[in-house]
């Protein structure tokens, strides 16, 4: 066990975990915009700044909790004036970039950032990169790209055209901390990144599934146990089939009907 102090409290840390993970596990809240537990930390947004002492840290050094691996004897302070000053400047930069985000506005209220002194832009994306990383590293569709560089950096499908490799799993839209990736769902289609996908229909009842042909194909690459005949049946029909099996076990004669709606 590794011993780390957070805000003075002695905690037991697991080998290899980060300060952010340790803090979250122990109920401390460290603001962050580019961290997701299913991904390796990237250290891009820099909101999770903490102050570190001990364990060979330079005096009063600030670093990001998401990329800081615990070390024996480490002391971490979450809310020093230094941390709060720089965190607020970073938040101010983000709010200048994306002025109308309720998520950022709420953070500003929480951390006492009152004034945006920087020229305001009109973007909606805070450029945290989660969408690209989740698509690449977790979903595995690799449909999106971080393009350009400097202030012109963008996160979108390659060349900002409807993405060929996208499967419409919509995870990117879900994970986006400022919810800036629009998804349109109708009974027949899912539209994301400017591409419209047909929704598969349940082969039994014809109900629209939350699944596309492309997503199904990607899922099947994850395991040979996943078969189309299982995937394109809705949950209700799946249960009906189970019922059928059970019914024949209990009583061969009866017919079944769901209670309620």
């Amino acid at each position, binding site marked *: 066990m590794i011993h780390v102090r957070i805000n003075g409290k002695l905690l037991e840390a697991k080998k290899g975990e980060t300060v952010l993970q340790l803090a979250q596990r122990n109920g401390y809240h460290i603001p962050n915009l580019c961290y*997701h*537990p*299913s991904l390796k930390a990237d250290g891009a947004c820099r909101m999770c700044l903490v102050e570190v002492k001990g364990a060979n840290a330079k005096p009063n050094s600030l670093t990001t909790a998401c990329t800081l691996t615990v070390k024996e004897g480490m002391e971490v302070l979450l809310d020093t004036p230094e941390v709060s000053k720089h965190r607020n400047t970073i938040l101010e930069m983000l709010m200048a970039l994306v002025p109308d985000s309720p998520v950022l506005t709420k953070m500003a209220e929480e951390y006492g950032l009152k004034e945006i002194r920087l020229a305001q832009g009109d973007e909606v994306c805070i450029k945290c990169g989660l969408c690209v990383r*989740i698509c690449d590293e*977790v*979903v*595995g569709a690799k449909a999106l790209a971080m393009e350009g560089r400097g202030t012109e950096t963008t996160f979108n499908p390659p060349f900002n055209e409807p993405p060929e490799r996208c499967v419409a*799993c*919509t*995870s990117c839209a*879900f*994970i986006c901390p400022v919810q800036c990736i629009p998804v349109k769902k109708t009974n027949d289609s899912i539209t994301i990144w400017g591409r419209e996908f047909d929704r598969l229909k349940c082969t039994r009842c014809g109900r629209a*599934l*939350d*699944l596309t042909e492309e*997503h*199904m194909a990607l*899922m099947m690459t*994850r*395991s040979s*146990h*996943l078969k189309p005949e*299982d*995937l*394109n*049946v*809705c*949950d*209700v*029909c*799946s*249960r*009906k*089939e*189970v*019922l059928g099996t*059970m*019914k024949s*076990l*209990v*009583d061969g*004669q*009866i*017919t*079944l*009907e*769901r*209670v*309620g709606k």
Partner: protein
Amino acid sequence: MEKTFIVIPEKCTGCRTCELSCAYSHPMASGQPGNPRIHAYNTKPPLEKGIQIVCLQCDTAACMEACPAFALQRNLETGAIEVHLDRCINCHACFNACSFGNIVLDPNNRVAKCDLCGGDPKCVQFCPTGALLYQ
């Protein structure tokens, strides 16, 4: 030896108390009850019998294999496959993958499934006819 979740359709009346207890013991982040992860079906008259459907905690679980984020992990103490919502990326792959319809969507569109209430299933506790057992 792990305990086993047993359904006894002969004793089920289709009263859906199990569903209610499940929904209330698994509230969403907002505090509202979630959707039940167990389903009780009753049969049409003349036979007043019911059947319950609940996650089998499969050994080779399609939901786990379909999840790209390792958000579904087996609890080694209870044997239950649990959804770790912090890791979940809401792609609904598990929801589509389960051939038994035992992954459900909460009203907030997040996936949910039976987690055996951490070893003390509330549905078993509240079943008035003893149609559910966990032993």
